């Protein structure tokens, strides 16, 4: 294991993060570009911090996302940078965003549960698009009749939305407040289901069975 000075370490880590196709974790750095060198966790953290500061005033920034570190353009520049591509960024429908939000905040969740909250059927198209984008994945099956798939978000989802972890999701407080306030009555109604409730449940089950 060779020694490496701080300046060289900084250059190497910087170049590695720049040439990588996706965010690079500290573990990956150590196993690849830094494998010949003796680099302490602290030295690596220091270098990453220094690089973050170095780029603060620049047009690109070093940020940490779920799967590691990546350089990205300053978001205030996007109106002009987007002119470099013919196609504009895809817009997502409210149905898609609500479905994604439910999966993100309530994972693991079945399609039937999403439909119960939203009050409408979730189109297969939405699930397919989200899966193809690698934003959601099936993480298991719920042990109820029909064994519906349980969906969760992926690391790529977090990367895409510049989040380090699910805890960084915006307005998670809204959901927390909701849980505090309304969970008890909800349980109460479930204890004594009305005819209506049954009707809803049957409809939900039917939908799940059709999946």
């Amino acid at each position, binding site marked *: 294991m060779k020694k490496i000075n701080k300046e060289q370490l900084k250059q190497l880590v910087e170049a590695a993060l720049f040439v990588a196709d996706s965010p690079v974790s500290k573990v990956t750095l150590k196993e690849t570009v830094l494998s010949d060198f003796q680099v302490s966790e602290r030295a690596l953290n220091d270098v990453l911090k220094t690089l973050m500061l170095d780029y603060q005033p620049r047009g690109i920034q070093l940020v940490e996302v779920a799967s590691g570190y990546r*350089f990205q353009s300053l978001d205030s520049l996007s109106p002009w940078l987007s002119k470099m591509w013919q196609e504009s960024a895809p817009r997502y429908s409210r149905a898609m965003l609500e479905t994604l939000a439910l999966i*993100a905040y309530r994972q693991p969740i079945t399609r039937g549960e999403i439909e119960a909250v939203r009050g409408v059927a979730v189109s297969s198209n939405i699930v397919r698009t989200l899966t193809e984008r690698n934003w959601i994945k099936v993480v298991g099956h719920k042990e109820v009749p029909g064994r519906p798939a349980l969906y969760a978000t992926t690391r790529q989802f977090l990367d895409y939305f510049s989040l380090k972890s699910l805890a960084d999701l915006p307005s998670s407080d809204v959901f927390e407040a909701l849980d505090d306030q309304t969970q008890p009555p909800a349980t109460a109604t479930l204890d004594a289901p009305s005819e209506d409730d049954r009707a809803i449940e049957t409809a939900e089950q039917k939908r799940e069975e059709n999946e």
Partner: protein
Amino acid sequence: MTDVENASELTAADPVQQPLPLAFIHGEALIEKPQDLYIPPDALEVILETFEGPLDLLLYLIRKQKFDITALPVADITAQYMEYVEVMKSLKLELAAEYLLMAAILAEIKSRLLLPRRSDEDDDEEDPRAELIRRLREYEAVKVAAQSLDEQPRLERDIFAVKADVADSVSPIRIEPDVSLQELVLAFGHAMKRAAAFEHHTIEREVLSTRERMSQILSMVNSQTYTPLDALFTPEEGRGGVVVSFLAILELVKEQLLLCVQAGPYSRIHVKLGQHEENQ
């Protein structure tokens, strides 16, 4: 209660913003009637897409009237909801089952609220609106979450991944597999054993004869004078014999027992005993 100002207070995500109070109900053009129910003609076609379902429509009606969700005025809301459903029906929009289901739920809640309660049931009877209120609140949270997710800086739209090219001298590294000396020796052992099983005699003899020939050649040369290389071959032995001699010479040269000299291209090759042999 509702006026233009209220309408303008709606958030951007709310669907009805165009101040075109024109709708067709039962084939008749309606102008500003009822006021909180104006539906621009264009919007009618997309109403099912504009409202993300019955909960969204209910929320819209509640927020527009500035009602408190917890004090859900079922009677008013039901009336307005039904009017929307009527409009949808009259336009022959294929009404999603979910909208009709909600209509049934609202009617049921309304009827239960109208029923006189017996005092002894008061304790355990739940407010029939509770479940709907819970669902509305939950849906509203999802709506807010979806909106803030949409506002979250996103790759391809607000931020772009940055990439530098690698210098031309960067090339993928292939990690070669490890081989132990033991593996190598065992492989040799296996190969030889198998060869012995196939053609016992040939291999044995050739190996032996090369060693034998090496000794013969050593005895034919000395360290003082050069011996012409071709003198070491016995053509009478045939190709096999020549090969054996040649291998033996190569082996000797490799081990520096034999020195090989050639005066010029294509001239005769001479050999003599190697230097280090003398030193010993």
